[in-house]
């Protein structure tokens, strides 16, 4: 009885083409036709620069959501890491060492989140809401609420550096994608990420240290956030204690747009990349049309809602056909 139910659901998971493919295509064509200046090469580079940070933090967010978790602390943590990076640079540390400090802060916070979530079984969204407050508070205390201006010119130079015409932040983000792809699809860690979301009990029964892998997901998230601070500080040449707050909204939206489900460990890393690009295209087009960022947030929300509704209708149709 139980087994036959399982089999049905396995058949169901042979999914049709995710909606994100059509959505991003429609959006890109509409922007090319309807928004003057959108299709220029300068603007395409611009979109790449704009989405680079989002891509870096959306990668671990995919793994977190695959494991039926959520990380609301990403934006606040990224702001904190940027502050730490800028302040240690200000102390005369080299760029590598300062980035190390930023990564250490990120990974420690990830470890803290992961331990509370995996070891103690606390609900991820509340834990990371708490760390959001703590990270934001530490950033405020460290800076006394002011921006930290970076004196060292090498960070801005690195940000502006291009290889074969491709800006460094874009290459950095693509490397982050490649690393995450490798981890998710070609290592035991990746297999366990899917399993933690899909069937954690079976994993525990099979004797795998599921909790350690579960914690590792959040530590990996902290690592990526720590690295993203380099791009953020390079862009602004300064760090503000609240500069990236709310960025986790775009990251979560990108993952959901990309078709990763909060249940059963279903997901697609490249879908997240497409989700990130879709959000980047949408925000850029709205920018060019002179629509302010507060309404862009609303538009991203509506886009996600639209895709979720379409997916849910399609899913119920597939299920209806099966029944």
């Amino acid at each position: 009885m139980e087994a036959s139910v399982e089999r049905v659901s396995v058949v169901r998971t042979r999914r049709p083409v995710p909606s994100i493919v059509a959505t991003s295509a429609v959006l890109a064509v509409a922007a090319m036709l309807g928004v003057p200046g959108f299709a220029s090469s300068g603007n395409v580079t611009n979109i790449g620069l704009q989405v680079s940070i989002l891509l870096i933090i959306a990668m671990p967010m995919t793994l977190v959501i695959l494991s039926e978790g959520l990380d609301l602390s990403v934006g606040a943590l990224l702001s904190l890491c940027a502050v730490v990076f800028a302040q240690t640079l200000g102390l005369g540390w080299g760029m590598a060492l300062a980035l190390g400090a930023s990564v250490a802060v990120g990974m420690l916070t990830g470890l803290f989140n992961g331990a509370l979530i995996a070891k103690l079984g606390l609900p991820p969204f509340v834990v990371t809401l708490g760390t959001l407050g703590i990270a934001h508070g530490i950033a405020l205390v460290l800076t006394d609420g002011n921006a930290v201006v970076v004196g060292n010119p090498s960070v801005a130079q690195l940000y502006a550096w291009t290889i074969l015409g491709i800006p460094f932040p874009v290459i950095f983000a693509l490397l982050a994608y490649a690393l995450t792809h490798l981890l998710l699809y070609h290592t035991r860690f990746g297999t366990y990420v899917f399993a933690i979301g899909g069937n954690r009990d079976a994993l525990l029964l099979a004797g795998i240290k599921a909790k350690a892998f579960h914690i590792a997901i959040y530590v990996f998230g902290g690592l990526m956030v720590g690295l993203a601070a380099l791009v953020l500080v390079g862009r602004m040449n300064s760090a503000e204690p609240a500069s990236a707050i709310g960025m986790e909204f775009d990251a979560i939206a990108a993952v959901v747009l990309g078709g990763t489900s909060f249940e059963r460990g279903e997901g697609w890393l490249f879908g997240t990349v497409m989700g990130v690009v879709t959000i980047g295209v949408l925000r850029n087009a709205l920018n060019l049309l002179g629509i302010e960022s507060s309404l862009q947030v609303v538009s991203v929300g509506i886009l996600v809602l639209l895709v979720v509704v379409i997916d849910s209708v399609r899913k119920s149709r597939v299920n209806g056909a099966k029944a």
Partner: protein
Amino acid sequence: MSILNNSRFVWSRVSQLDVRHHVGEETATLIYRAVLIVLIALVLAFATAAFSAAPNLLNVLRQASLMFLLASGLTLVILSGGFDLSIAANLTLSACLAAGVMKTGGSPILAAATALSCSTLIGLLNGLAVTLLRLPPFLATYGMLWVVQGLAFHYMGGNEIYGFPTAFRTLGTGFLGGIPLPVYMMVFVLIGATIVTGGLNFGREIYAIGANSEVARLSGIPVRRRKIAVYTISGLMSGIAALVYLARVNAADSAMGEPLLLPVIAAILIGGTSLFGGAGSLLGTLSGCVILALVIDGMNLLNLNANWQPLVIGSVLLIAVLADVLGRGRKERIG
């Protein structure tokens, strides 16, 4: 009444520290909260002279009432096994709209109606997203948080609206018999909500859904409709809190609600309501609101730099979640 009897019974046996052996779990939780409130108040009274002044104590009570208005709806949502992250953003947008109506010459009644319809609509949309689209509650309401916040930013355009009619301001600043009006509202909501959750079928069904929604569905409870109802109530309460808050501070801006989100969640958890649904009470939430109001008041009186407040509140929130889960674990071990 029974609380009083039980507590006398308990204090006669102070040597046996675990109150739970003698009274129900619920009562024991409330006694612990009451003791905690007294302890914090004593510490603050010794630490700063300003704490014990009557205006300050009334201010704490007013702050607690405001938080409770916001927290009561969220408590119902959490009892039903859901969550609502959009309450503070909802408060912001509703208050800004009410402020806008009054600024353009609309009467306070029209402003209140606008705020309440806006907030209730947001709650209804949350309920529909959670039930019809089957989105996880924290995801749906998190998305709603940013959409609503974005609308508030857009509506205000970075400006502030201030200066409202005296009649409206009475709602937040008025007194009746020496006690602030919001306190009466709090008591009214507390009594109403306690009757609903404790005595009416609706309340029992909410607990049942939170404990196990599948079992609730199989026993004939209209789970979807009840869930939509609790999210809608949560929206409505955000609107009521928005009006009281607006009347009190006499100014609206697009960031006014945001600092309330973490304290309100912390207050509910400290009040003993479980994040996993099905356990908790409105009276517990009230005790949590008083504790958080005391903590915030204490930070202000001790001249703790405002930059420290997110850090303190975030830590309090985590400690509250930790206590919830560890306490539950112990209960399960005890059997």
